């Protein structure tokens, strides 16, 4: 028996809300990758990447960061550094950000973006001083004086970047604010507040989420039900995209485009850099407690240095000899910076007070005197009393 449905009859079978519903908004999130994990181009490369010298320059920074990171962990393990946050696996994301930024732009880090900061003039010994318990690490003697120091309270840096971008826009400057957060940080209210404000005010700010899949021990799936973190840009009314954060070319390209948009007055961007935290969260963490070794091994094959090196070797722009020479130079640079760090000693005790206010209130001046007096009698074995 053949059953035929009258179209008119079908209309009444459709639920009422479906019949009345139209689409109010639609969105899609792009993903960009130029080099696959084996270093093979997935398509035509952006213009900057057609110059091997540019790529070699960025690769050198990535190696430099890796050598530094390895040394910093060794220093911590041997009792010569406090808790340290490694950037292992994030080198492409960080170097890509730093390479795209101009000196007059302002950077608002979280706490592991050394690859951005070294390019902006932050010294390796300053990073070590910070993790070695010394505020002088925040002085940034040769980096832009307006760059913010490390920001440990998660997501608060987004507000500072939004405020800086507000100032740049107010002053009609072609400057941009750039800030970084992790995947866990996207769960903070501050994250949304800033995206939303940057959208409403069309601010020159680039928000980068380094999605390394782990917020200490909490995996991404426990942070969000979203398919991507980039789509959170939609909620703020700004442009969002996802890139392969282990692909330095994709990362640099996305940053270039985001900064260009901002400088043209076209507003903010959220970039989700897909990467992986190959290290523990910090040296105080032991990721073996919560993470499969197999997962880490799988990501080691996709890490950012391998693919760009392979690609440069294919081009004939890099070889084993250059690699060895550069590794040796990086190690020598790191050693020299470690020597500066180790010779820094303890900061003067009065430095606790001297920068509390532009004009030190009387009460603090008395506390400063008392602290100095105590320090002058102290034999605390740290060698810095005076």
């Amino acid at each position, binding site marked *: 028996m053949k059953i035929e449905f009258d179209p008119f009859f079908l209309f009444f079978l459709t639920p009422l809300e479906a019949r009345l519903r139209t689409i109010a908004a639609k969105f899609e999130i792009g993903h960009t990758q130029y080099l696959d994990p084996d270093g093979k181009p997935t398509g035509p490369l952006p213009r900057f990447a057609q110059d091997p010298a540019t790529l070699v320059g960025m690769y050198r920074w990535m190696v430099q960061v890796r050598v530094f990171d390895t040394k910093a962990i060794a220093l911590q393990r041997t009792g010569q550094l406090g808790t340290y946050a490694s950037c292992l696996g994030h080198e492409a994301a960080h170097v890509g950000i730093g390479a795209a930024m101009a000196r007059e732009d*302002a950077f*608002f880090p979280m706490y592991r973006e050394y690859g951005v900061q070294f390019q902006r003039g932050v010294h390796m010994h300053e990073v070590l001083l910070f993790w070695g318990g010394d*505020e*002088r690490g*925040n*002085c*940034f003697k040769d980096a832009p*004086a*307006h760059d*913010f*120091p490390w920001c440990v*309270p998660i997501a*608060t840096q*987004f*507000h*500072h*970047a*939004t*405020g*800086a*971008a*507000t*100032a*740049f826009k*107010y*002053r009609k400057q072609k400057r941009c*604010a750039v800030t970084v957060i992790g995947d866990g940080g996207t769960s903070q*209210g*501050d994250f949304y*507040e*800033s995206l*939303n*404000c940057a959208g*409403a005010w069309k601010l020159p700010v680039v928000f980068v989420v380094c999605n390394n899949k782990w917020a200490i021990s909490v995996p991404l799936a426990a942070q969000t039900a979203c398919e991507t973190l980039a789509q959170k840009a939609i909620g703020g009314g700004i442009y969002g995209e996802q890139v392969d954060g282990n692909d330095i070319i994709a990362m640099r390209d996305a940053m270039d485009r985001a900064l260009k948009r901002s400088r043209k007055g076209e507003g903010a961007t959220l970039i989700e850099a897909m990467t992986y935290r190959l290290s523990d969260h910090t040296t105080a963490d032991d990721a073996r407690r919560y993470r499969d070794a197999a997962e880490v091994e799988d990501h080691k094959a996709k890490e950012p240095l391998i693919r760009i090196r392979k690609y440069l070797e294919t081009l004939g722009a890099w070889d084993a000899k250059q690699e060895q020479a550069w590794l040796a130079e990086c190690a020598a640079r790191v050693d020299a910076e470690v020597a500066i760090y180790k010779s820094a000693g303890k900061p003067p005790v009065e*430095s*606790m007070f*001297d*920068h*509390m*206010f*532009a004009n030190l*209130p*009387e*009460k*603090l001046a008395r506390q400063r005197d008392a602290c100095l007096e105590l320090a002058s009698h102290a034999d605390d074995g740290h060698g810095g009393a005076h």
Partner: protein
Amino acid sequence: MAKVALVEAITMALAHEMAHDDSVVVLGEDVGKNGGVFRATVGLQERFGTERVVDTPLAEALIAGVAIGMAAMGLKPVAEIQFSGFIYPCVDEIINHAGRLRNRTRGRISVPMVLRAPSGGGIHAPEHHSESNEALFAHMPGIRVVMPSSPARAYGLLLAAIRDPDPVVFLEPTRLYRLTKQEVADDGQALPLDTCFVLREGTDCTLVTWGAMVVESMAAAERLAKDGVSVEVIDLATVSPIDEQTVLESVEKTGRCVIVQEAPITGGVGSEVAALIAEKALYSLEAPIVRVAGWDTPMPLFKLEHDYMPSTDRVVAGIRSALEG
């Protein structure tokens, strides 16, 4: 010279500083066309434009954090928090960043911002609109806390707060916004941020207070004067850091001290004043210090707010107790 209410003196100070310094930018919820819910920014957007008088999205942590970013890049933001109970989301930004950026960067980055907020009760406002939270900010290193108690002091202290190179939390007693008018010259003269104000000289007892409690304190002093009791009333005004010298000299003179605050008694600014006197003027005291304060309860809804806030009667009783003690 114009006679203005406290809230109008705030507007006058903002307008004066905006006219003389293009780095001053006002931001907050409803500060633009609406002129602020208490009308403290009325007319400013019309005069200075939407780029300098900015309506923010409804997010207090954002307001504080954005002000920090603006200040660090060379502007002088004056941010308004709409009601006193809404200031708490700002605490993270104020304590973790505004108060410590200069210190932790060893002077490289400073935060010349002002966070303005209404303070205290007594105007039959809804829940969470009548809080006294100055002690919270006074406890934070690197933050100045200022509470004006007259139109002239509001004008001069706000100018000083805006010009100060460090963050200032500026708490405005809502009960005083329109209580009285006073002649205030719009002469751009700032008041010092490290000196309190002796509102009434006296010899028998020192009364230290600040904010809206200046009203009950002055009324109590007036009432006792009729009985021949001479009370010296000090408006602390710059709640943090405290002008210790003026307070101590007064206590050394009178030998007695009553501290009046609207905020809950425990851990308040009054506790700090009491500790200061105990440490540095104990032997001048002829009687125990008396604190007259709000109870250690939440600020009640408005039917009971006058049972919560110290009344003139309570202040008078406090002074009598100090005199008898």
